[in-house]
Structure formats: structure tokens, C-alpha cells
């Protein structure tokens, strides 16, 4: 779990940049649409706001083949272990975008039934606010994640947290 320490070697730094670049292109999302945000996520993948221009239109149902988990919607107490299981099954490197108010903080439902923020269960890289966030907000969130990866800010997903 030592991860990639910053290597002063010129060749490896350029390679690292290259690797980061490839990781941001065609990040395949796992289907984790739960509620209303899922509809906006589907609308983002549809024709008007096209996720395919980022190479992300294939939503992989199998977590083994996915890089990115967009938690779109409210996570109930019953769904929380399932969420964690799917996250654990994803292969490294993996990222999590918490889409919408309910996934980020519990949203307007501050009650017994929801997990108040999905970051209580999985480590989140980008939070996208909105109820639901429009496709443009989601794309902004994805681009933010891509720039974070490119800049090396997220070197490697920390795995079991």
C-alpha cells in the first residue's frame, strides 16, 4: 500500500503523466443509478448531453469492468452494504463521484432511513451538488475528476478505507 511515491526520475514522471492521461480517457462508469439522479445520469448519456464524447457511454453492469462509480441517488440503510460490496468488487484504479444532494450529504431527507452522505461508506473523489444535478453539472463533475487525475492529485485510489 506504499503507492506511487513521487519519483524524481524524468522518464518515470512523463510515464506517470501518460498513465494518468490514459486513465482519464474512457473511464467506464458502473451502473449505480438509484433514484431521480439516475434519470439525469441517463439523460447525460443520451443524445443531447453526450457522455460518449468522453468515451463514457458504456455503463458497465459488472463492477469488475468499471472504473468509476457514480452514486446517483439516495442510499438507504438497506442498500448501503450492497453499495459497499459493489465498490469492493471494482478493480483498481477506481473513483467515486457522489452525484446529487442525497448521495453527498443525505440531501433533504435527514431521517432514519438514509445514509447521510455516501462518504460514510465509500471514499468519494468528487461531489456533484444539485437535486438533481442537471447533465451539465454532472459533466462538470466528471471533468473535475479528470483534471484531478491528470494533475496527479489522486494518485491511486486508496482501496480499503
Amino acid at each position, binding site marked *: 500500500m506504499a503507492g506511487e511515491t513521487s519519483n524524481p526520475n524524468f522518464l518515470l514522471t512523463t510515464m506517470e503523466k501518460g498513465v494518468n492521461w490514459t486513465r482519464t480517457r474512457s473511464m467506464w462508469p458502473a451502473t449505480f443509478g438509484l433514484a431521480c439522479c439516475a434519470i*439525469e445520469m441517463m*439523460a447525460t448519456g443520451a443524445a443531447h448531453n453526450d457522455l460518449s464524447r468522453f468515451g463514457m457511454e458504456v455503463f458497465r453492469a459488472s463492477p469488475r469492468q468499471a472504473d468509476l462509480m457514480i452514486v446517483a441517488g439516495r442510499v438507504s440503510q*438497506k442498500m448501503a452494504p450492497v453499495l459497499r460490496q459493489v465498490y469492493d468488487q471494482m478493480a483498481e484504479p477506481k473513483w467515486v463521484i457522489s452525484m446529487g444532494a442525497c448521495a453527498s450529504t443525505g440531501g433533504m431527507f435527514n431521517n432514519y432511513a438514509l445514509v447521510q452522505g455516501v462518504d460514510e461508506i465509500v471514499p468519494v473523489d468528487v461531489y456533484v451538488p444539485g437535486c438533481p444535478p442537471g447533465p451539465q453539472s454532472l459533466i462538470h463533475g466528471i471533468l473535475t475528476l479528470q483534471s484531478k487525475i491528470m494533475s496527479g492529485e489522486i494518485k491511486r485510489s486508496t482501496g480499503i478505507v
Partner: protein
Amino acid sequence: MTDTSHTEEDNVASTPDTPDAGVVDESAAAERLREHDIWVAGTEEPEWIANATDEGAQEMLPRDLDPALAVQRGVVVDDDYVEEETIVDDERQIINMGPQHPATHGVLRLHMELEGETIRRVKPIIGYLHTGMEKTAETLPYMSGGTNVTRMDYLSPLNNELCYSLVVEQLLDVDIPPRAQAIRVLMTELNRISSHLIWLATFGMDIGALSMMIYGFRERESVLDFFEKVTGLRMNHNYIRPGGVAADLPPGWEDDVEGIFDIVRAGLDDYQDLLNGNPIFLDRTQGVGVITPAEAQQYGATGPIARAAGVNFDLRKAFPYSGIEQYEFDVPLGKHGDVFDRYLVRTEEIRQSIRIVEQVLETMPAGDYRTDDRKVTPPPRQRIDESMEALIHHFKLFTEGFKVPVGEAYQAVESPRGELGMYLVSNGSAKPWRLHVRTPSFATVQALPVMLTDLIVADVIATLASLDPVLGDVDR
């Protein structure tokens, strides 16, 4: 076996396979290892430590013990299909589908007992999206109640808001002006169009016509653009409130609506050409997932599902609300109650909704968009500068909220999924004492096992897609 004398603590029904908790002398590491042991078929079944994702009370019981089997075999309700089954114990296979699945329309979990590819038993397990909305509704004043309720059936949020506003207005003593009623009809019928378009998109995708996904969402964008212009949001609008609507229609709205007609009509013609004659589509949908009218009524499956089975009942005609009786429209009915009939009924409903919206467009009355009663709706912004009374009304409405007289009421509207009803108990205060929402998808998911008996797994997808369940509706 069935132990129904539950106490407050005893929330898990005892199942025959629950292991004794606490194999106390194992170390934690050995315990974790045992959880991930591979079980070889034919060897002794290991005892699992219950994980949170284990079935617990929702485990699929052995066939001789499962009481749900009688229901599904048609013993309780008159089922129409019986096939001889030859299940031997080691041929029985229980497959779990969901809750995370691309084709379950949300977080629905299905336990299916298969004999080969044929389904013998289905157990839907829900609750993965339970949000406690009925409890939250008791903490929100009536003007904010729409924000909560609108997120239940998130594909047709305006219908939820309409039902909520109508049930509150049943107990209030206010008159809703005709323009507000016409705007409500306009918005909810457009919502029906957009909801059925999403249904068409996901249904087509599940059947295999992947381009339908793109087409359906493309047409829907034109409706959502209109909603954004009028209400400010693409989804979950909180626009229809008790007393009227939140704001008037913007100028130029007639042209936008006519633009929607052109796009949707042209699209519908294309899609019907694409799908109606397609032999693969017909094979996958005709005769599949049949529900008889008696079954639909017993289970409370209303809306397009009952109408496709031939039950001539539409709440807009039977118990009209919000002035919809002024508009002329037909109610499409099917004959066979299968998936193909539901598809035909819904596409025809889109056309009928366009017809209603055309009539609203022509006959939209002028006037107020919400009731005048300042105890219920806030005054216009400029009045607050002028009048002290308006200021006080505004203050009281937004701090405390308006009070609804004591009473109980039930109101149902025809949502794109069926009968959406709300039962409101008011104790005279500014917040509901109890709001129960009777959602249509809850009843249809309950009726799923009767539709799925003796089908193959591929038909499960088609049937589930044709039911159009929205899990936010089911679990609330």
C-alpha cells in the same frame, strides 16, 4: 413455521437455516476467511455468518414451506396458466437478480427459482430505496410538502404534487381558479408524455432495441426544456402547490408547446414503424407477462396494466379532478393483458395526452394562477411593500405555514403508472399528522409473480420493463 406473534424486538422471522450466532472460539481472521470459503457442490452446506447482504427473513424458503407459492400458482387468485412442473431438488436453482442490475429499473431485487430456464417462483424484495418520506412528510409544512412528495415517483413528479395539492385542498376551504386548474392539467399531461417517453426508451432498451433509449430521451428533452422554462427545474419541480401553482406560465409558452407536439408526434410515428412490425419485438412481447382483469383488480394493479387487460377504468374519467372533464379524450384499452398490449396502450396514451394538451392550449382561461385566499398562498412580491397585511401573511406563511382544518381525506389521480392516491390525516396544525401515499408501482410489483409464472428469464426483463415500476414509488 410461520410465527406471527411478533414482539417489538423480534423483527426477524425465524427461518430454518439461521445459524446460531457466535462461534466464539474462532479468531476474527478465521471468521473472515470462512465467509469467503468456496462451497463445493455436493459437500456439506457450510454455516454462514449473517452478513448484511444475506437474505435473513427474505430468504427463499423450500418449496414445501413457502406460503407465497400457493399465491403464485394461482390457488388464491384465479390464475390463467398452469404448466406441469418437474422440479427435482438438485435441478432447482435460485438466482438472484439485483438490486444493482442494469435492467431492473432501479433497485429491485428478484429471487427467482428456475427449472432450467423456466421460472417457477419469483419473490420480489424491495426496500432498497426506502427514504422515510411518509415520516418526513410529518415534519414539513404543507407548502413544502410538495418537495418531499415530488421525489417519490421521480419520472412524473408533477402528478405527485398534484395529488398532494388536491388532497390538502379537499380539507381546506378554498376555490381553485380555472386557470390554475388548466395549468395543472397542462403540466401533468405533459408529464405523462415525458414519463411514457422514458418508459419507451427503457423498455426498448431492455427488449434489445438500443436506439430507443436515445430516441426516447431525445424527445423527452423538449418537454424538459419547457418544464425548465416554466418551473425552473427539469425534474422534481415543486410547482403545483396547495392553492394553485407556484408561478404563471411565461409568455410564448404556446409556441413551445406546439413545438413539443411536432417533435413528439413525428418521433412516435417513427418508433411505431420501427417496433410494431418487428418480428423479434413481437415474439418477445406478445403473449408474455399476461395478467387477467380479475388478477389486476385483486392486486390493485391499475393504470395501463389494467387497461391493457381490458379493464375500462381511468381515474380521469371516473373521478375527474382539476377540471379534466372539460377536455375530450379517449381511454385506450387492450385485450390480452400482455406486454405488447401495454406497449400499445401507452403509446396511444401519449397521443391522447397530446390531444388533451392541444385543447388546453386552445381554451386556456385567463385569470389567477392561484387562489386569492391570502391565508393559503403568499401575496405577490410587490404587495409586500405596499400593505402591512400582505407582509404579515407572507411572514406567517413562510415561518409557520397555513393550518389545515381537522379531517381525513383520500384523493387519487391517474399517474402514468396507475392510481396514485394520498391519504391525509390532519389534526389542525400546519404539518400533516399522517400522510400515506398509495403508490401504483407498489401494487404492480406485488402482482409481478403472477405475471411471471412459467416464463423464461428473458421474459422477466420484458415483463418488468412493461410494468414501468419506479422504485422511488415502491419504497418511498
